[in-house]
């Protein structure tokens, strides 16, 4: 790493983090998501509506429904409707005389929002199930088990059959979250990198820059600078996330986070993944005639990052299948698939070692070729570069 690369890295970093788009994406986006989440919790919990509004009224024409906390019986529909309009109840259920034959009932409500309907529906389901079980002479204890049959305790065993040490929720959540952060971080940083190179090429600035530093120095500086941009974004997001978790009831779950080998592997895959994607995207951007075309071609790389989601069903069914092993060795999917597999099952260590070795070798080879493609690509203006020309670039000294 030369001082010129560091100058380029500093320039690209400062230029990008000052952009309104970056500030909005880094701080505004998570705050907006928090606002939306808070709003849905607020409305979901019914906060702000009067206590009386949480009460449900019912008219029992079938003759089997018994009162329960939160439910008030009315003699007829007219009396129930009057209570509803007056705000004494949130909704009114009409259990018809032929309920046992049809299974349908009518709900009167003043709330036409989706959240309000869904909330009342779940309460009504439980209320009606309890009454039906009671009608069939099922004990309250048995009814409770039917309503909530499973309360699992999961014990994960290692290959020797002994319980694994790290069974806390954070043991799975943290590496999985890191994988997601890895994917988002790689795509965001390389997106900025692609835009930066694309703009430079479009404005024909490459030749001037290459008279100040070599293609290798320029490429290294840009990759480093935009890595800093991506890291800053991730740090801000993680900090906001941790602050929210600390203020939430889940704080105790994360109180004993330890840096396990899984976290170390996540960091290794992050660094290697970032460099592989950055070098690839830098080449792609330098070959495309416009920023727009560079974005279209670079979308191919984004596909690799979402491979674990595309193959999620196969991943969950058999994380050690041949397909998943192949995707663990393929450099562009390795950082994502390997990390998701590691959070789900015990992956044979040799697979991880081979996967990381292939990634490192790919980066070394690609970096050597990238400087040539980048240097020549940046000087090819206003036209698409053919595959034959790329081969010519690679032959350039």
């Amino acid at each position: 790493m030369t001082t010129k690369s560091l100058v380029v890295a500093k320039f690209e970093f400062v230029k990008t983090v000052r952009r309104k788009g970056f500030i909005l994406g880094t701080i505004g986006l998570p705050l907006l998501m928090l606002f939306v989440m808070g709003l849905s919790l607020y409305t979901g919990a019914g906060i702000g509506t009067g206590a009386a509004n949480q009460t449900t009224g019912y008219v029992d024409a079938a003759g089997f429904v018994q009162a329960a906390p939160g439910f008030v019986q009315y003699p007829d529909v007219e009396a129930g409707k009057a209570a509803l309009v007056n705000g004494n109840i949130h909704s009114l259920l009409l259990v018809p005389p032929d309920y046992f034959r049809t299974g349908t009932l009518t709900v009167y409500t003043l709330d036409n929002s989706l959240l309000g309907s869904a909330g009342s529906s779940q309460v009504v389901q439980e209320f009606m199930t309890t009454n039906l079980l009671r009608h069939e002479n099922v004990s309250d204890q048995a009814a409770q088990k039917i309503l909530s049959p499973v309360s699992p305790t999961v014990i994960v065993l290692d290959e020797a059959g002994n319980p694994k040490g790290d069974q806390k929720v954070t043991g799975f959540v943290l590496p999985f979250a890191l994988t997601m952060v890895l994917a988002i971080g790689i795509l965001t940083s390389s997106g900025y990198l692609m835009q930066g190179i694309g703009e430079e090429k479009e404005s024909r600035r490459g030749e001037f820059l290459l008279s100040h530093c070599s293609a290798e120095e320029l490429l290294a500086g840009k990759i480093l600078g935009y890595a800093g941009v991506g890291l800053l974004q991730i740090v801000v997001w993680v900090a906001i996330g941790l602050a929210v978790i600390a203020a939430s009831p889940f704080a105790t779950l994360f109180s004993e986070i330890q840096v396990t080998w899984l976290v170390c592997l996540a960091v290794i895959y992050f660094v290697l993944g970032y460099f592989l994607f950055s070098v690839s995207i830098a080449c792609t951007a330098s070959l495309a005639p416009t920023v727009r075309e560079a974005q279209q071609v670079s979308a191919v790389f984004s596909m690799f990052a979402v491979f674990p989601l595309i193959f999620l069903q196969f991943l969950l069914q058999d994380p050690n299948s041949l397909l998943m092993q192949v995707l663990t060795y393929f450099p562009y999917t390795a950082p994502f698939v390997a990390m998701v597999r590691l959070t789900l099952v015990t992956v044979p260590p040799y697979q991880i070692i081979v996967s990381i070795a292939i990634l490192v070798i790919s980066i070394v080879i690609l970096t050597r070729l990238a400087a040539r493609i980048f240097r020549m690509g940046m000087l090819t203006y206003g036209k698409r570069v053919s595959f034959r020309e790329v081969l010519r670039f690679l032959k350039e000294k």
Partner: protein
Amino acid sequence: MTTGDQKNRNENVLEIEHLTKTFDSKNILEDISFAVNKGEVFGLLGPNGAGKTTLIRTILDIFRPDAGMISLFGKTFSDDIKDAIGYLPEEGSLDKEIPVSECIRYFAELKHVDAIDRKMDAWLERLDLAEYRDKKIQELSKGMHRRLQFILAVIHQPALLILDEPFSGLDPLNIKTLKDILLDLRDNGTTLIMSTHQMDEVERMCDRILMLNNGKMVLYGSLDEIRRQFGVSIEVRYEGRLPHIDHILSINDSGNIAELIVEKDADTQAILKTLVASVTVKKFEVKQRSMNEIFLEVGRR
């Protein structure tokens, strides 16, 4: 000029021997050999597609030669040498979203310039851009943008300055300012290589030239030497009918005025005698060929 100055001027800043550059089996540059002396203004001429830009990129080590040797300041290319060269490309715009001062600082840091602020302020003042120091580049006019590019090319006080169409996009006032600065730089020891199509500027500023056509050297030497190679032209105002004249390469006859392009070393007095014997000669002026004429003639070959 002292003997020492003369000696320095004869030192080669750039020396190229048998340079060949090929793309897709096509020779873009073929067996190019020339030298640029210290402190001279060297013109790099040629029609579009002649190979000038490829030659400049090869000198700057952006392209590597397929054959031949390039020596700068007596050495092969290195990072130190790159920092001793300034380059003003013909095209390309700077990042419009950053302030002028930040742009200058960036490129100055890439060339390891010290006391950047002092040098920046001096150049901004000299090129009448001081009030735009903290403004974004998008606020500059085309001419201002060109002047800013020039500052970026010279802020590190290069020993060799390569300029590709330096006057394009500038008004006559700014052309004069830039020419004065270039001559100042030359007087302070900077060697200039100037690629341009403006032949009048070549005639005014260049000591020697190299002309390329289809990747090959077609002219190389001092302006006087080259003009001598191309003979002279004669402007004749006459009455009558022009006779056949020996040693004439071409005639541009308008009826009463004719321009005769004569062969090299032709006897102009003999031509005058031939004319006087046949027509009434009212004016007979022997002129050296202009660079523009030479450029057109060589370009047509």
